[in-house]
């Protein structure tokens, strides 16, 4: 399925990989703006920067966050501080932009669809982020990411307007480019297709009930499935139709095995572990580190138009639009009040790893 990224370049870079020294510092990775630009961006993000929070997990910087209620509710990126089951990796602390201390935080709720978590610190009269009321910013709109410093952490523009991001499952095959059928030209070791017994030359006729006519159609269909999902595959081998069941792999897993695209995307720094499958996200070109996610993104009016949710590649950072963040926060807080919890949401409670 990653046929696309893999074949992206029959000019290979594999051997160059070994030549390159690793890891530049965060500063070296950041774009350097002319001073005049830096100054004006610093000015317009001031109010949002005041409501930006540094979130620590087990003593280390894990993410940024945004104050969403004056009484100490803070929204942040869940997967940087909580494990799959919603349990904290370690003690969670928050530092406010106008304080010099860290305050211990409790997890109020988590929404795995958006990868948002709401935290609560013991405080009052906190400055809530200045939410934007306009709809999602268009392609080419400025986006400023404040951190806890006077200057922006990063500046970029909208690269792609808000869209639904596919969950990005992978089958672990390369496909022939063919407009009549989807024939396997490669089966990657250790991924879904191999485990399901598929072989080079097999032609996929049906994928999860969908009749497959072209390679492109199959690629797309796979991308919109979830990793871990079990799907039925009808394929043709030696002119006979056969059936297999595959438990889908994730695109990240596949990319991690593909030296080239993984290598290219890693040029420019680390990527967030959770970086796909968001219900709605703005793609922008700000250079971020995974630990820079979770905080507000500000437009040219100084209003918060989104929350950075993932560093997903050398050219892509994702932000959830404000409306989605606010809805999710409202839902999590309402759940807290009524104490009804779903699988995805943790009830409000003081939690430590030991308790679980």
């Amino acid at each position: 399925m990653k046929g696309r990224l893999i074949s992206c370049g029959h000019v290979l870079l594999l051997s160059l990989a070994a030549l390159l020294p690793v890891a530049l510092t965060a500063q070296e990775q950041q774009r350097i703006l002319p001073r005049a630009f830096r100054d004006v961006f610093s000015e317009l993000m001031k109010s949002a920067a005041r409501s930006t929070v540094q979130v620590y997990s087990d003593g280390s910087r894990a993410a940024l966050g945004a104050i969403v209620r004056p009484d100490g509710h803070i929204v942040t990126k869940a997967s940087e501080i909580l494990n799959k089951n919603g349990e904290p990796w370690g003690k969670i602390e928050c530092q406010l932009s106008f304080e010099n201390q860290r305050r211990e935080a409790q997890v109020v709720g988590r929404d795995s669809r958006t990868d948002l978590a709401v935290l609560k610190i013991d405080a009052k009269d906190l400055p809530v982020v200045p939410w934007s009321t306009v709809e999602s910013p268009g392609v080419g709109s400025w986006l400023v990411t404040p951190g806890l410093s006077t200057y922006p952490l990063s500046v970029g523009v909208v690269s792609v307007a808000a869209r639904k991001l596919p969950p990005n499952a992978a089958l672990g095959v390369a496909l022939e480019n063919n407009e009549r059928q989807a024939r396997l030209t490669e089966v990657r070791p250790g991924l879904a297709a191999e485990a399901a017994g598929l072989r080079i030359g097999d032609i996929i006729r049906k994928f999860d009930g969908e009749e497959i006519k072209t390679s492109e159609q199959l690629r797309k269909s796979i991308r919109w499935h979830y990793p871990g999902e079990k799907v039925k595959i009808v394929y043709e081998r030696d002119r006979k139709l056969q059936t297999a069941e595959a438990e889908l792999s994730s695109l990240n897993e596949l990319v991690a095995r593909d030296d080239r695209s993984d290598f290219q995307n890693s040029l420019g720094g680390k990527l967030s572990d959770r970086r796909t499958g968001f219900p709605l996200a703005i793609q922008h070109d700000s250079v971020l580190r995974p630990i820079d996610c979770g905080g507000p993104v500000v437009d040219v009016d100084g209003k918060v138009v989104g929350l950075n949710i993932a560093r997903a590649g050398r050219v892509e950072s994702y932000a959830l639009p404000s409306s989605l963040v606010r809805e999710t926060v409202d839902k999590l807080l309402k759940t807290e009040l009524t104490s009804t919890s779903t699988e995805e949401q943790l009830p409000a409670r003081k939690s430590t790893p030991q308790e679980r």
Partner: protein
Amino acid sequence: MIRLSKSAPLMGFGRVSMRGIRFGTLALAFLLLSATRWPTPIGAADVTAANSASTAGSISQGLRRILDGNLDSSTPIAVSDLRAMQGHVHTLSEKLKKCTVGVRVDQERGNGVMSSAWGSGVIISKDGYVLTAAHVAGQPNQACKFTLHDGREVDGKTLGMFRTLDAGLLKITEGAEYPFAELGDSSKVNVGQWCIALGHPGGFQEDRGLVLRLGQVKNIVEGADLPDNRAITTDCTLVGGDSGGPLFDIQGRVIGINSRIGENNSTNMHVPVNAFHDGGAWDRMLKGDAWGHLPGQRPWLGVGQDERSTEAKIATIAPGSPAEKYKLQPGDVVVSFDGRPIGDFAALRKAVEDCHPNEWIRLKVRRASGTIEEVGLRLGKKSE
């Protein structure tokens, strides 16, 4: 499709251009006459209109200077300048997207299976000439597919390529009129100038479309007399699939073509657009000529000549070479290469030289036993 340069070996050179202006102007005129009946530039007119509507109209003098690259760090910028610039980019990006395409070049592998290279390109004439990177185009006179901004797919073919600078030319062959971008003059590009990169990182994705990046020129080595290391470096981040896509100046004119990256986010390199027409390059590409080598990318088969033979007879097989991997033997005679007859060893050498490293090729080989076999193999890369 991005190639990697080990890093930018360009730091500190600043702008180097000499004959650029004169040459550029001449070559451009030449291009207008010979390439295609150069139509009234509709795209250009639109862009100009957009400029006069937003750039000239509402952007302050100070910002205007900065957009053009006349950087004066003491010039204060107001939020209203940012807003004006943003409005300008909004309008411009809609137009620029219409000229930018996804490119897919299908290549038959040795085993009869088709594999594809994905990249990007930019339409520069009404009748569908498309600039791209040489490493996207692959080989001259191959079929390729273009994905237009609205997702429509049209047929095309590859023309020539100047590999040393990574410049390649394609043509849409389905007759129609296409929106196209105006060409800029890369000899006049300045460090600090704002620019826009477009492309399909990771390949064309229907549910995403084109991806815009805004940045600044960080370095430029450009001039018609610098044949090998000409490049524009920007902080518009690029990744595989962006290759061949356009770099525009802030007026919307093509000044470069996305080519390769270094490890730093600010090392994204673009072929200066003048490389497509300086020194007769355009004329050669139109004819389907492919010449030069991508830097550090010499193709490798790994066979040594049997000098006693007048045919393309193999005497030695280099250890670890593609020839060894695909079981060529000393004593084999190569009689054809991708369907073209091979008369002698020099012809074989030339045929290999004309390929990209890692390209799939198909040889007909006469074995020592006299049987003729077809061997599909993938060339390697010889380090320089």
